[in-house]
């Protein structure tokens, strides 16, 4: 084949690739790259949405880090959620996944029942939990009282609001259960048989056969859990709004993080600064902190050996 026909072929294949990728190429530029750069730009501007933006240097940054009373509590809450909520979700998801592989009666019914809460729309699920855990009229405290147990204030008590959110997150474990179940069923049976012949206890079988086999999935669950926590917005916001009990429609002014800033997360600050205080510059500072954190975790996910990027390439 002559070089010119080769070159023509190459050009045709490039054009073909570009044509197929074009929707995403436009989407990436217009709805990702451009707004991301603009976020950096606005983080150095003073902008209230009405008067044209003016250069403000690092004023927004010092404001967010030193004077904005919600930033550090929100970051601390995020850390709490990453440590407690993500850990418990992975442990509980793995436990429920194990349990479902062991249940031999009416497996389909159990699996569906365990999975359904995952599908409940976040707003509806949170409203439901705000009602269930309502200290005054909620059925949970009513049951706890009948059993003679202490009745926490849940979403109305700063020490209990994050555990209440964690409970809500554990309720919606369905996706992790399915992922763990599939991974557990993939563990080679011979390895269990060999371990049993060697006289391994159930715990040893779990520790030395199950865990090494599913460790990539555990890692996946941890990293995606952390990334989900970076985006955690609807549940804490609705829980705080409903529990605070002030009659308010959507869009009403609302002191974020009720009670006592305990349900604040970083995404809520972007909303508070940008759309309630009309301080777009400072909102962009928080957005960039959020960006840095999530990208760090995404990099971790993609660096993992045999990670997402190699998925399906065999």
């Amino acid at each position, binding site marked *: 084949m002559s070089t010119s026909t080769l070159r023509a072929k190459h050009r045709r294949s490039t054009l073909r690739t570009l044509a197929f990728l074009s929707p995403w190429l436009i989407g990436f530029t*217009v709805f990702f790259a451009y707004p991301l750069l603009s976020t950096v730009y606005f983080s150095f501007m003073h902008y209230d949405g009405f008067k044209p933006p003016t250069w403000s240097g690092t004023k927004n940054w010092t404001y967010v880090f030193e004077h904005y009373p919600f930033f550090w509590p929100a970051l601390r809450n995020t850390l709490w959620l990453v440590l407690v909520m993500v850990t418990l979700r992975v442990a509980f998801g793995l436990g429920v996944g194990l349990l479902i592989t062991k249940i031999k009666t009416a497996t389909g019914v159990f699996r569906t029942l365990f999975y359904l809460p995952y599908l409940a729309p976040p707003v509806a699920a949170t409203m439901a939990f705000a009602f269930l855990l309502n200290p005054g009229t909620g059925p949970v405290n009513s049951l706890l009282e009948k059993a003679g147990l202490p009745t926490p204030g849940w979403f109305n008590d700063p020490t209990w609001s994050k555990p209440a959110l964690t409970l809500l997150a554990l*309720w919606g474990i369905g996706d992790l259960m399915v992922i763990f179940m599939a991974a557990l069923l993939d563990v080679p049976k011979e390895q269990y048989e060999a371990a049993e012949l060697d006289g391994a206890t159930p715990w040893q079988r779990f520790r030395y056969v199950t865990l090494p086999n599913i460790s990539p999935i555990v890692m996946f669950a941890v990293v995606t859990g952390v990334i989900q926590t970076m985006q955690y917005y609807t549940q804490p916001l609705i829980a705080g709004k409903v529990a605070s009990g002030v009659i308010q429609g959507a869009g009403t002014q609302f002191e974020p993080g009720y009670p006592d800033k305990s349900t604040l997360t970083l995404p809520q600050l972007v909303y508070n600064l940008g759309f309630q205080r009309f301080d777009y510059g400072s909102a962009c500072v928080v957005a960039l902190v959020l960006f840095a954190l999530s*990208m760090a975790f995404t990099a971790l996910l993609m660096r993992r050996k045999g990670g997402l990027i190699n998925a399906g390439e065999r």
Partner: protein
Amino acid sequence: MTHVLEKPVGLRKAPPTPAERTARRRALLEWIAIHSLGIAAALFFTLPFVFVFLTSLMSDTQALSRDLIPHTWEWDNYRRVFDTPGFLTWWKNTLFYAFLGTALTVISSIPVAYALAKFRFRGRNLALMLVISMMMLPPQVIIIPMYLFWAKQLDLSGTLWPLIIPMAFGDAFSIFLLRQFLTTIPDEYLDAARVDGCGDLRTLLKVVLPMAKPGIAAVALFQFFYAWNDYFGPQIYASENPGAWTLSYGLESFKGAHHTDWNLTMAATVLVMAPVILVFFFAQKAFVEGVTLTGVKG
């Protein structure tokens, strides 16, 4: 069944040895333990739904008490929810957003996913990494410029268009999921189509798409649920115009309008949850497949 014959017949009637008896007892105990745990877990996952449903049928006064079971079953509560101004509009808006958004996402994501799965070109891994980065990015990171773009430059705030239009340009999660699915289709099918003289577009439409139906179904379901559940998007763009609210967004203001009426609020909550769960029962397989596909193929 030859192995039955190999067993010495006399042994079957002999009383179990102590070792056999402990093994059998242990198996029984394990069975009991696992099923009690299973029932405990089933209660944890189901009771919230049950209590929400029971409360939705209570009278206005009883909903303020600590009772668990309704004294009288007020099915009328559900009609009263629909009488609430706006509730029907929220349904219409949600269906519009969910159906149109899903259709646009599927149509625009398929060719991109196909190219990322089956074309060999320079920068393919980079493109894939960028898709994954987009998928992982919290929407709040770019919301300020996006809002300014749609509201100030295009004057589209108070509508759902700023949420729907971007879906015509590929959605990162859908592209990723579809690409995962398409890589499992053997190249031999594509080569055969090429030998038969099919161009790329025809190969995609006639060969790949019919084989990719389960993957497309999963993407469509996820996107539909995404729109159904979306709170942040409508809050940013539609909050100023109640005529453009969606169910997820309206539900919260419903609680505001019906401050202490837990029964009506819970009835509305049931009405927002029900379609999602109904759709799941009809498309269970596609949904579970999608979840596994994004998580396990690593």
